[in-house]
């Protein structure tokens, strides 16, 4: 290694552990002296570069980070709270939807379900104990009035028809009770004119303010019931 190359290498890195440089130093005292000189210069440079560091720097750095992570945790807590609130809200909506939404798609489905569910409470042998006057009192809620008895009325009361207030009438039929539902026009399930299942038939009529649904067993002449209702009912404005 020539002199110039050696000097340059020492300037570049006085503490180099490169083998060529170590060998050059070992074999030439003047090179060794030069290297030592530059190393001393480097010690001075190191001392000069070591400017005093502020005493409280470590504490400040840790404090700043502690504040930052506290802030982050607060943000996280807020996010968690928001998440929990969203979940609660969604659950509330779902519950609401399940409770109050239509489980039946047509008035027919519902009328059958209602009839079958309450069938055990009524028997064709029950005494007809509801008078025309008390029926008409209840009909007033639907702005309707019956001019004459439709048949032998076993039961008449308000009930929930798909969440709507409706009037449920049970008459004596040929072999089993006939159910008549009077419900407001604004029920949000599909209207069907006639419907049936294995045991029951049903027919519905639309009036201005209300629908009237008749459900009876297969032996019942529902047309006759419908005609009877049509000719008997009057609607006040």
């Amino acid at each position, binding site marked *: 290694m020539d002199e110039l190359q050696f000097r340059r290498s020492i*300037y570049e890195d006085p503490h180099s552990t490169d083998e060529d440089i170590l060998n050059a130093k070992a074999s030439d005292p003047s090179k060794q002296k030069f290297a030592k000189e530059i190393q001393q210069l480097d010690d001075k440079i190191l001392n000069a570069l070591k400017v005093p560091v502020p005493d409280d720097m*470590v504490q400040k750095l*840790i404090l700043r980070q502690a504040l*930052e992570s506290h802030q982050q945790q607060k943000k996280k807590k807020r996010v968690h709270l928001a998440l929990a609130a969203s979940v609660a809200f969604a659950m509330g909506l779902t519950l609401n939807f399940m409770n109050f939404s239509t489980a039946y798609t047509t008035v027919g489905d519902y009328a059958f379900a209602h009839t079958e569910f309450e069938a055990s409470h009524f028997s064709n042998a029950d005494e007809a104990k509801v008078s025309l006057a008390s029926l008409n009192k209840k009909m007033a809620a639907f702005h309707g009035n019956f001019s004459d008895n439709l048949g032998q009325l076993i039961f008449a009361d308000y009930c929930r028809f798909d969440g709507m207030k409706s009037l449920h009438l049970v008459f004596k039929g040929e072999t089993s009770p006939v159910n008549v539902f009077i419900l407001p026009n604004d029920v949000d399930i599909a209207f069907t004119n006639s419907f049936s299942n294995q045991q029951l038939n049903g027919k519905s009529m639309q009036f201005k303010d209300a629908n009237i649904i008749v459900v009876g067993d297969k032996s019942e002449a529902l047309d006759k019931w419908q005609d009877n209702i049509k000719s008997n009912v009057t609607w006040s404005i």
Partner: protein
Amino acid sequence: MATKQVRYEALVKALHADLYRYAYWLCREKQVAEDLVQETFLRAWRALDSLKDEKAAKSWLITILRRENARRFERKRFEMSEYEEATITDTQSMSSEQDIENHWLREKIGSLPEEYREPLVLQVIGGFSGEEIADLLSLNKNTVMTRLFRARNQLKEALEKEPEVRGTYNG
């Protein structure tokens, strides 16, 4: 969480001095250097999970700090002015020969071109090799070695040229 905290504090204790000194020689203002280090460690804390190799911690922090410094120039381009050079002056009392020499040398290092000073600081304070400095500064190794050579060469010449000037500090 606790281990992240422990890692962070260890990192601060081990490297804050080197980082502060590097920052100081980058901007040569104590307050700005301190702010840079604060900002750097804060970013380091946020991204600590991405630091996989503790041995790479120092160069990782230096990279963050350089980026922060560059950002400072984007923000404050119009606030920077030349006379800030005067603030290099150390206010510490110069009692010993050593302090006087340090002070004098600091001025010389401060007046080195930035492109020579930065590799020198990284080598002497940071203990980085030529390759590592080349990586950090996105330069090739030969350029880095040339700059290191010129930095020392200029400082040596300055030292040899001005013994009398240095003497006046004693008076």
